[in-house]
């Protein structure tokens, strides 16, 4: 018992030490981009699952993507712009987006179990996985931010005020699908920004990009 507790203590100490002095920025960004890649792939598969049995009428009712609640955020739209944006701004953008989705994802995971969809269980599990990944990525990006040593922390606030997806099951399904598609796009944005950041930071090791 004492040996086990001693080991545990040592491990936690080491972890704390490592986390404080930490790994290098490149490794952090590498890890962050991996997480974001995973986030994006989960959201893609979730969208595909939803699409498999999506009623045609839902497509008609689907709102346009510009109606996502994060659409107001000013982001670079193409590659040239994205390459010109400074790193800390990219990071803050990524962090803002990430922050904007913690509440909606909570709603989605709450509603996933009662969806009128045959793939409900898969959707439910994947939604939960999304939620976990977002939390870990948020924490990781905070480390990156601290590592980068930016002076100001200008995160945009993107509120999400709805607390229900709808009243009838069709609208719920449609809204669910819509939110998910918005999230998928935003996860791609996060992923792209982080990859750009990673490649920009790893100039000495171009093989990483």
């Amino acid at each position, binding site marked *: 018992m004492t040996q086990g507790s001693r080991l545990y203590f040592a491990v936690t100490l080491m972890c704390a030490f490592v986390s404080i002095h930490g790994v290098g920025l490149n490794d952090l960004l590498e890890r962050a981009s991996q997480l974001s890649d995973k986030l994006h792939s989960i959201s893609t598969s979730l969208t595909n699952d939803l699409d498999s049995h999506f009623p045609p009428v839902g497509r*008609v009712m689907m*709102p*346009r993507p510009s109606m996502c609640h994060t659409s107001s955020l000013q982001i670079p739209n*193409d*590659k040239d712009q994205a390459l010109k944006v400074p790193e800390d701004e990219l990071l803050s953008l990524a962090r803002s987006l990430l922050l904007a989705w913690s509440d909606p994802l909570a709603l989605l995971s709450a509603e996933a179990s009662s969806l009128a969809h045959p793939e409900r269980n898969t959707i439910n599990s994947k939604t939960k996985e999304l939620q976990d990944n977002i939390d870990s990525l948020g924490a990781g990006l905070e480390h990156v931010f601290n590592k980068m040593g930016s002076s100001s922390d200008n995160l945009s606030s993107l509120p999400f005020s709805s607390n229900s997806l709808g009243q009838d099951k069709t609208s719920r399904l449609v809204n669910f699908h819509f939110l998910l598609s918005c999230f998928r*796009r935003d996860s791609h944005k996060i992923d792209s920004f982080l*990859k750009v950041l990673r490649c920009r930071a790893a100039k000495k090791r171009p093989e990483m*990009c």
Partner: protein
Amino acid sequence: PQIMIFLFPPLRETAEAMAYSLSLSLLYLGLLCGNGPVYARGSELFTPDPSRGPHFTGCRSREQETFRCWWSTGTFQNLTEPGALRVFYQTKNANEWQECPDYTRTVKNECYFNKTFTHIWTSYCIHLRSVPQNITYDEACFTVENIVHPDPPIGLNWTLLNVSRSGLHFDALLRWAPPPSADVQMGWMSLVYQVQYRIRNASHWEMLDLESGTQQSIYGLHTDKEYEVRVRCKMSAFDNFGEFSDSIIVHVAQIPSKDSTFPTTLVLIFGVIGVAILLVLLIFSQQQRLMVIFLPPIPAPKIKGIDPELLKNGKLDQLNSLLSSQDMYKPDFYHEDPWVEFIQLDLDDPAEKNESSDTQHLLGLSRSGSSHILNFKSDDDSGRASCYDPELPNPEDLASLLPGHSGRGENHPLVSRSSSSIPDLGVQQTSEVEETPIQTQPAVPSWVNMDFYAQVSDFTPAGGVVLSPGQLNSSPEKKKEEENEKKIQFQLLSDGAYTSENTARQLDVPPSPGPEQGYQAFPTQAVEGNLWNGEYLVSASDSQTPYLLPEAPPAPILPPVSDYTVVQEVDAQHSLLLNPPSSQAAISPHTPNKHLPAMPTMPMGYLTPDLLGNLNP
């Protein structure tokens, strides 16, 4: 309405206007976008449907920086002139519809959006309109990242990793480079690759897992087969694969030498081991039987005779019958003994004799009148059967001895002798010829008593055999009175003759001059001959030569001396004892009558009929 409120919380003041426009547009979409997807996530370039009106066939982006859209006129042939159909697009930022920035000149019905007009993470909607009639034939909405189909990778090549030990398989390492259009270095696009290979001209492609790097190994390829390999890529977490790269051929020639020998030696070794194991198993399982086959039990000596089990357990009458039928000590046993040859002579009675000697028969001569040779019984018997066979000799054989029968075609000396006063055969002193052979019948017992060996002293020039009489001793002295000159003559003459003294006595020497002269010429040498005779059978211990008869040469009357004696014993010095030392002097008489009964043991391999007679149960 609920959706509107849900989506546009911060725009409540313009909610009504927005709601109106949006509902209108949705209605419009619902009316017109029956077939095409509202949000073309992954729009493919599908083949134009000729049955339809003008429609979009697809939009694609190669590098996530520009994109193109294509359409077809469909069945409306009157709209083929350029400018009849126009493309308008609308992004979410601007609400007005803008026309296609660049209608590609080289390609028909293509609209190209360059970098300036391409916005990522922006949804686009494009319309295909005919402006004069103000009809929108088709519409498509998408976001750019969803229509990205990367270019194929470039620089596909392969290297040999290793070849298997058997030379049948090899591993190859494939390398390629990302498409130059995709900006992977800046991280703008993250690509994953998929390698496919197949045996050349096969129909089915083998697909490997997605690879995010730019190299991959293929394991387990067969040598001597040509493989086609190609690679394609897509954006990670998106579904749109780009085009395949050009195929390359992967081929490794088979090395024949190692192949051929290695498996065959292995097979040989395993085969031998398997056979050995089988043999061992077989031996162990069939141990008992194999032991009998390969190491047969030494057979117990098969003593011809009585079964020992029967001896142990059999009944008495069975044993008796068995023993009687065994004939082990019967005279039949005698028949098989080849070296035992018996000359049937009558010891006691000189009358009985066989006219021709055995040697004469051997020499193949027929002695007519000049025979001093004993005549034996016919050769059929070899002189043996009648010896110990108690039955009477075959009368026919005896009759053949008669002159009338002359089975041999020779003048039996018996005949001649009989003419000249044949001495009696021991029973009768008749000169009848006919009786002589018959008289041999009762002479059989006297034959038994006869000494069967006589020393051949010399051969006559005519081929006859001169026999020396036997050893002089007291026992035949009783016969000395009977014999006269003849004995003397014979004693003088015979030198190592192969007759007994009895027969010598019996021999009636006819007064024929020639050969007899030869015979009679011998007496001068008789002494030496006797001396020589004496050496024949006398043992070393016996200083006296029994055949040396100091008185023999001068004495006309000599008792018949047997030149052969029966070897009675062998003493300790391995000398032959002709007489048992207790009974007599060195001279051993020939009378089997005396000795044979006194003989305690059987002589060495010599059995006289007397012995046989004694032994017969």
